[in-house]
C-alpha cells in the first residue's frame, strides 16, 4: 500500500473516531455548545452535498437547492403540527415532499444547462419562497412554524427522542453518514459513471446512447433527496421550519461551501461547510463582518485551488505517490545486478 493511501486511511479512521467521540470529547475540550455546532455542520454539509452531486458529478450548477431544503423542513413541521404525524412519518413526508418538488421543477429545469439552468433554479426557489412567505396560514411566513418533538423510538414505556442532546447528535451523525455512504456507492455505480460521462461531455454521452435528459432528471431528484433529508434534519434540530431558509442566499452559501471544499469529491462539501461554519461561529461574536472572510477565502480558493481544498489535497497525495513510485523504481534499479 502506498504512503498516500495509508495517510488517507489513517485520517479517515481518526476522523471517524473523533466524530463518534464528539458528545464527550468536545464538552471536555471546549464546551457543550460546540456539539450542536458540529451537528449543524453535519446537516449543512449534507445540503452542500446536494449541490455537489449536481455540480461536481453531473455538471449542473443549481442556485436553488434551498427550495428542496425548505420542503424538507416544512414537510416535517406541517406533518407534525397540522397532520399530527409521529417522528418517522413526518421525516418521510419531508423527504418525499422535497423529492416530488425536485421532480416537478426538474422536468423543466434539466432541459437547460449552465447559466440558464442556474437561473431557472433560482427562479423556482424564489417563486416558492414568496409563496411560503405570503401563505402564512400554512407556513407561518417569516415567523415559521414551531413544533414539539415527538419521540423517535419508544419501547414500552421508555422513549428515545432528540430532546436528549447525545441521542440527537448520534441520530444526525447516523443519517448524514448513511447519506454520504449512499452517495459514495452511487458514484461508483454504473449510474454514477453515466453521470460523470454527462458532466464531461453531454453531446458525446447522448451519442453513445445515454438518455441525457432522463439521467439529469434522476440526478436532480436525488439531489432533492439529499437537500430534503438535510432540511428535515434541520427542522428536527431546530424544532421549527421557516420560509427564510428557502431564500436563494441559503442556496448560494451551499454552492460556495461545495466549491471551496472541492466539487466532484465526496468529502469536499463537508470540508467546505466545516471551515465556513467554524469561522462564522468563532468570528461572528467578535466581529460583525465575518462574511468578508468567507468572501476572501472563496476568492482565494477559486483562484489558487480551482478543485477546492480536497482537490488540492488530492494533488499533494498524487505527487507523494509519484515520488514513492520513483523511489521504488530507483531501489529496484539498484538491486539489479
Amino acid at each position, binding site marked *: 500500500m502506498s504512503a498516500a493511501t495509508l495517510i488517507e486511511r489513517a485520517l479517515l479512521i481518526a476522523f471517524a473516531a473523533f466524530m463518534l467521540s464528539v458528545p464527550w470529547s468536545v464538552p471536555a475540550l471546549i464546551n457543550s455548545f460546540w456539539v450542536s455546532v458540529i451537528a449543524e455542520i453535519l446537516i449543512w454539509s449534507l445540503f452542500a452535498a446536494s449541490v455537489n452531486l449536481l455540480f461536481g458529478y453531473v455538471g449542473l450548477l443549481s442556485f436553488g437547492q434551498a427550495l428542496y431544503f425548505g420542503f424538507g423542513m416544512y414537510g416535517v413541521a406541517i406533518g407534525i403540527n397540522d397532520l399530527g404525524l409521529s417522528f418517522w412519518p413526518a421525516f418521510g413526508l419531508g423527504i418525499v415532499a422535497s423529492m416530488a418538488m425536485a421532480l416537478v421543477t426538474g422536468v423543466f429545469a434539466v432541459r437547460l444547462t449552465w447559466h440558464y439552468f442556474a437561473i431557472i433554479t433560482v427562479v423556482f426557489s424564489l417563486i416558492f419562497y414568496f409563496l411560503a412567505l405570503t401563505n402564512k396560514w400554512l407556513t407561518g411566513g417569516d415567523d415559521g412554524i414551531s413544533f414539539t418533538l415527538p419521540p423517535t423510538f419508544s419501547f414500552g414505556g421508555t422513549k428515545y427522542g432528540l430532546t436528549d442532546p447525545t441521542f440527537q447528535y448520534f441520530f444526525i451523525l447516523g443519517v448524514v453518514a448513511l447519506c454520504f455512504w449512499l452517495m459514495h456507492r452511487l458514484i461508483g*455505480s454504473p*449510474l454514477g459513471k453515466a453521470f*460523470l460521462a454527462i458532466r464531461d461531455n453531454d453531446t458525446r454521452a447522448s*451519442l453513445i*446512447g*445515454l438518455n441525457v435528459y432522463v439521467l439529469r432528471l434522476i440526478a436532480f431528484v436525488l439531489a432533492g433527496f439529499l437537500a430534503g433529508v438535510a432540511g428535515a434534519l434541520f427542522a428536527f434540530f431546530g424544532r421549527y421550519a421557516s420560509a427564510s431558509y428557502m431564500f436563494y442566499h441559503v442556496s448560494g452559501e451551499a454552492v460556495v461551501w461545495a466549491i471551496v471544499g472541492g466539487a466532484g469529491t465526496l468529502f469536499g462539501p463537508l470540508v467546505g461547510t466545516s471551515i465556513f461554519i467554524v469561522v462564522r461561529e468563532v468570528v461572528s461574536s467578535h466581529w460583525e463582518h465575518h462574511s468578508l472572510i468567507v468572501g476572501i477565502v472563496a476568492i482565494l480558493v477559486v483562484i489558487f485551488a480551482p478543485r477546492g481544498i480536497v482537490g488540492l489535497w488530492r494533488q499533494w497525495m498524487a505527487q507523494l505517490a509519484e515520488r514513492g513510485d520513483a523511489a521504488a523504481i530507483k531501489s529496484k534499479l539498484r538491486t539489479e545486478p
Partner: protein
Amino acid sequence: MSEPVLRTENLTKRFGGLTAVDNLSLGIPGGRVHAIIGPNGAGKTTFFNLISGLLKSDGGRVFFHGRDITGLKPHQISRLGIKRTLQIKSVFPQLSVAENLWITSQAGQRFLNPFRSASADRAATAKVDRTLEQIGLTGLAKRAAGTLSYGDVALLEIGMALISEPQLLLLDEPTCGMSPAETERAVTKIRELARTIDIIIIEHDMEVVFGIASDITVMAQGAILASGTPKEIADDERVREAYLGRPEDEDYVEEAVHA
C-alpha cells in the same frame, strides 16, 4: 435490390437563409465503406448530425435498415446501432481511458444500476480489457482521457466505436490532425472494422478516401454532386470543378488515380 443500410429521402436542413443540406436522397448499401467528400461547407457534417439526431431536419426522412428513424433522439438512434465519432475529438476527459470504454459499452442499457459497484461487472470489465488490447492502450488504461496525446485520443475514439458494437459507424474526419504514422494506424483499424461493420466516412485526406472507400459520394452546397466508385469519381469533370478552388485536393485526386 435489397434494402440499403441507410436511406434518406429529400433530407433538408436550413440554418436561417442557408440551406446546409438540400433535398438529399441517398441510399447506402451494406457491406462496403462509403466515403462522403466535398469542399468545406458542403453539408457533410450536417448530414451526419441529421442522421445521428443531433440536429432536427426541416424536411425529409431517414431510414435505417428500412426503419424510419427521422426525429428520434440521439440516444435512441445510438441504441439502434448507429454510432458516430465527432469531427473534433470528443471523449470524456476526466474519466480514465478504461472508464471511457466502460461507460460506452454500458450506455445502451435501459437500467443503470445505482446500487452495485461498476467494477463488479466482470463481463463488462473483461470486454474493456479486450478492447484496450485491440487498440493498444492497455498501458494507459488508468490515465485520464484528457491527458492523452492527440493520436491516442483518436485511438480511444476508435476503441469506443468498437466496444459499442455498432451496425453502422459514422466517422467524421477520423484522421484529421493526425501524423502520417497515426493516420496509417487508424486506416488499418478502420479497414479491420469494415469487415464486420458498415461504415460511412467523411474525410478530407484523399489518400485515405481512395485507400479505404469502395463507394464515394461527393457533396457540394448541400446536394449530391456525384456518386460512384473511386475510379468514376476521380474521372468526373464536375468533381474536379467543385474542387478547383482547392488545388491541393486536386493533386491528391490525381495522385490517387495514378497510384
